């Protein structure tokens, strides 16, 4: 080997670990986000400055805003429910799940005006349902549990952030909703008829990113995921502080915020790992969603589930930011 070649090779070898250690140029990473207890750790991370500057959190009112941003190509990723991820994938947006934010075990619920106590009593009433997979999934599961059909109800397409006003004006008698609207409606006197604890491990809220937008953004993505877990640590260790902050952002009291987490399981670093892999809960949930969504017409064909998730951006267990 010529000496000059040898030098170049040596220099490259020496530089390689350094570049692995994080010398890649920082490309901004834009993530669509909307208020939801499972995503609050990211809001906390942003509030405490635990996210690097190149991460842009684009805050929308609901999941529909995030999906719209993805469709317009403005977002590199978004916090979505798993079924929304499947819908986006069916539209050709190559999303892959990099972290599971929460598992709804009762956080999605059917609320109704006081006085309505049985599921069947809702027949003939107006119910607000967000025309999303979760909304439809909740509706179909609720109808099945109540022994009703879709025609028995007057279904109004309405996202949760619009439901409080509709509730107050008496436009709706019931709503399929989730936090933080759920707490506000409960404060208004609504009663809970049905919730997602009846069918756990199906409604997962995840952080998903476009695989085709990861070039030069891998460090930022790892930092984003690490920021989520940092925020989650704060929520767990200092709930008194974290929940009061969340309460201030969402217009809720401390106890209401605490209650909003009752129906959610927020998996940490170790718990997240269990969701990934060929036998993980993510794939199992996606298979179940495939069935339900194809049956309801929300998906034309089942998602092939290829490259659905990757655990490579999860921080090492035990690592603390």
């Amino acid at each position, binding site marked *: 080997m010529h000496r000059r070649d040898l030098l170049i090779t*040596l220099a490259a070898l020496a530089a390689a670990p350094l570049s*692995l250690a994080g010398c890649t140029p920082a490309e901004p990473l834009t993530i669509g986000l909307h208020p939801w207890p499972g995503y609050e750790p990211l809001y906390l991370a942003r509030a405490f400055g635990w996210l690097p500057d190149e991460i842009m959190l684009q805050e929308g009112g609901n999941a529909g805003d995030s999906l719209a941003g993805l469709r317009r190509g403005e977002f590199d990723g978004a916090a979505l429910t798993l079924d929304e991820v499947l819908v986006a994938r069916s539209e050709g947006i190559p999303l892959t799940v990099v972290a599971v934010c929460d598992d709804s075990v009762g956080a999605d619920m059917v609320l109704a005006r006081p006085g309505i106590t049985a599921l069947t009593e809702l027949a003939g009433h107006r119910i607000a349902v967000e025309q999303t997979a979760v909304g439809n999934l909740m509706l179909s599961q609720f109808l099945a549990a109540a022994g009703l059909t879709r025609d028995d109800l007057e279904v109004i397409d309405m996202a949760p952030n619009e439901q409080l006003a509709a509730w107050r004006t008496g436009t709706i008698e019931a709503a399929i909703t989730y936090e933080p609207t759920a707490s506000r409606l409960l404060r208004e006197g609504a009663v809970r008829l049905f919730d997602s604890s009846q069918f756990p491990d199906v409604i997962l809220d995840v952080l998903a990113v476009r695989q085709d937008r990861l070039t030069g953004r891998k460090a930022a993505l790892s930092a984003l995921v690490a920021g989520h877990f940092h925020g989650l640590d704060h929520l767990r260790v200092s709930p*008194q502080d974290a929940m*009061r902050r969340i309460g201030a952002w969402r217009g809720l009291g401390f106890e209401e915020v605490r209650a909003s987490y009752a129906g959610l399981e927020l998996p940490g670093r170790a718990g997240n790992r269990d969701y990934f892999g060929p036998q993980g809960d993510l794939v199992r949930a996606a298979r179940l969603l495939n069935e339900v969504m194809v049956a309801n017409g929300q998906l034309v064909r089942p998602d092939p589930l290829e490259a659905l998730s990757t655990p490579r951006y999860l921080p090492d267990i035990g690592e603390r930011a």
Partner: protein
Amino acid sequence: MSLGRRLLFGALLLLPTPLLAEETLTLGVFAYRPEAVMEARYRPLAEYLGAQLPEHRVELEVMSLDEIEEAIAHRRLDLLMTNPSHYLEIRSRNSLTGALATVINVQHGQPVSSLGGTMIKAAGNDEIQRLEDLEGRRIAMPGRRFLGGYQTHALELMDAGIDPRRGITPMITGSHDAVVAAVLAGEAEAGFVRTGILERLMGEKELTPGRLEVINPQRLASFPFAVSTRLYPEWPFVVMPQVAPSRVRQIAVALFTLEPEHPAARAAQIAGFAPPQDYLPVENLARRLRLPPFDAMPDFTWRDIWQRYAGVLLGFAAAGLLVAVLLVMLARRNRLLRQQRERLSLLAGVFTHSHEGVMITSPNGELLEVNDAFSQITGYARDEALGCNASLLGAGRHAASFYADFWQQLKLTGHWDGEVWNRRKNGEIYPQRLTISAVTDSAGAVQRYVGLLSDITRLKEHQRALTHAAQHDALTGLPNRALLADRLRMAMAQANRSAERLAVVFIDLDGFKAINDTHGHEMGDRLLVALAERMQGELRASDTLARLGGDEFVAVLLDLASGEEGERVLERLLAATAAPVEVAGRRLQVSASLGVAYYDAADGGDEDQLLRHADQAMYRAKEAGKHCFRVHGVTSQQEERPIRAPASIISEETR
């Protein structure tokens, strides 16, 4: 009272105390506010606990942090209420039963079991707006061991990039109330207090609302106090290990059943007690700030470092290795360079100091470098020479064919040496020894020519002098025998071609020996020189006069038209030699005997023969009485005129 009753009473008094007298439990409370305030607030709580515990009395002790530690060390405390970071500190040193409960604070009916820090400034102080503005400020604080009064603030300062130890000027006041007073009095630009202090002081009418402002206010739901930091669990209620477990349960029941409306709770301004909170946030805070018990540097093992920084370490190691390799290579290069430089300077010395001119030219002859000797020889300074073509030096004496041969040989062999005539700058033409070598690259293409040139003018002169000395007589400067033979040969060859007459005249002086003997060799020599000059004067330029040695001369006469012309020359020679010569003031006179041999091309014969004939004729002239000439091949009888030596000559000789 009856006697019996009195006896009974007396007996009871004598019984061992545990049966009768109340057991005392000491409740230590950290005095984070003035002692009087603390006494007033917590005495009802102590009394409440005493009342709830059968046969126990609870005594209140309001103490500083140091006093608390001292009291714990001497087992003088049974129950303790202090700030969470102090709790962690003493927990690390003593075995405690852990926190039994966490205080629930209350404000306007809002229960809260979290505390934080409130950063205050005088209202209207616009210089401090944000956290970052606190850098370098004089800040009042109750003390560094106060959780709400310093430590919670310190973490926020750290996160804002301010060193909480050196980035601010602390003013330690000892209590929260004094901090507020210091800020109000303008003694400090800002102050650190715990949450609730401002609200309590306003409730106690000690502070007028609007006089202080909160820095970095946090938006928190369901939190009734102004706060500038994140929140931490409220004070723990701690039970010391010496208290019996059954008593601990009773205390717990008493604490948890304390209602907010109870006078003891109202006095303490709390809403009661909650199950103990997780004090991990306080622990994390202490870790970040390196507070006790985390003030010792963590034990880092090499393994930890490796696990954490393996990539970076490998990178540094590789980079270090690379640097080492490069350094070694650099050192070797340097050594090589030094050697080369030394060699180069040696060569440059040769180049510079050589007496031989050196020139380096491009393949087309352009001068690239010359040395001093070059300048001395050619007269061209280095600046003038560089860039010019080497043909500048030529004198134009050589034919074109010379240069053609020169280039051909140079191209063929890469080398040429020889002598050339060149012209100096001043126009002088001089002979030069020139050696030219071609410098080729690996492909054989000529890169440079290196020429060595030396001025051989003096060498040439010396050579000429040597040649002259070898061919001429040292005394008279006339050709010697060898040159004579040469000339004679040439003349004979010429005569052969042109059929001209050629005469050789052998001249022998008469009576010269006597002059030598009489006047010495020096006089004789000078006479010889004078006569040689005279004889030369009588000859034409084409003729040759040579001295064979002693008083013997030979003249070669060329191109004689006739015998008469030859005789006229001979007569002149006789006359010239016979005329007196003045040497060193003396008149000397000799004569000469001449023998002539004519060369006839038809007869042939060589120059020796011709000379011999002339010699023989000369002897005949001697025999005939000297001072005459005889011609070879002509008998005495044929001689028409006997030549007589002048009497004067004879007389001089004999004198």
